[in-house]
């Protein structure tokens, strides 16, 4: 099928690649289907809503910018995403891109978890964590190490 994307124009996608976010994303509860599109030549991806062209988040692998990042998935999240093994789990964080880029922040408090096999996704909100919604990606490692 063809979809309208925010950053890649009109794009033909395979319906097998659609990831279901059954509880939506906070602020965009109607957007329940997304696709992950790589941004060529970068470590960035777009989490693009299938139905809403403008709903497209820039996401990245948090471990690339912060290798020590860690959290426990709750049993509720594991069940909601039907996760059988950790090998099928992909973790992303949403970036709030600013210019200059030094101001860009990563939301480490609410990572996006995707079950790659089941094609299920959810933005989970961590509680009892020292991570916040805005970690500067440039000084990230120093800040969290404190």
């Amino acid at each position, binding site marked *: 099928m063809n979809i309208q994307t925010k950053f890649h124009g009109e794009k033909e996608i395979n319906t097998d690649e659609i990831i279901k976010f059954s509880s939506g994303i906070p602020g965009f509860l109607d957007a329940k289907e997304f696709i992950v599109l790589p941004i060529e030549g970068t470590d960035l991806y777009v989490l693009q809503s299938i139905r809403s062209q403008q709903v497209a988040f*820039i996401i990245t692998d948090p471990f690339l910018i912060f290798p020590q990042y860690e959290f426990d998935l709750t049993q509720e999240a594991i069940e909601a995403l039907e996760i059988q093994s950790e090998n099928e789990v992909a973790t992303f964080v949403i970036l*709030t891109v600013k210019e200059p880029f030094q101001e860009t922040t990563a939301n480490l408090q609410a990572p996006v978890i995707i079950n790659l096999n089941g094609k299920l996704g959810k933005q989970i909100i961590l509680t009892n964590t020292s991570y916040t919604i805005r970690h500067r990606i440039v000084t990230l490692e120093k800040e969290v190490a404190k």
Partner: protein
Amino acid sequence: MLVLTRKTKESIIIEDDIEITVLSIEGDQVKLGINAPKNFDIYRKEIYLSIQQENNSALNIETNILQNLGTFLQKKNK
């Protein structure tokens, strides 16, 4: 808004399967216990609102600065 008065250890039931119990009251702090099916996400409101707001901010990106950001990040990681 529906207003109900409850004492410690008393509960309210929403539909058949959500139960909210007042566990303790100390000064202006109330400790609530919530039993709900696992498909209900329950958050402190201010945290949920901050995530909502940050998601909204994250959508405000110009297409042309994306590529620059990618290049910038890759240099940094090397």
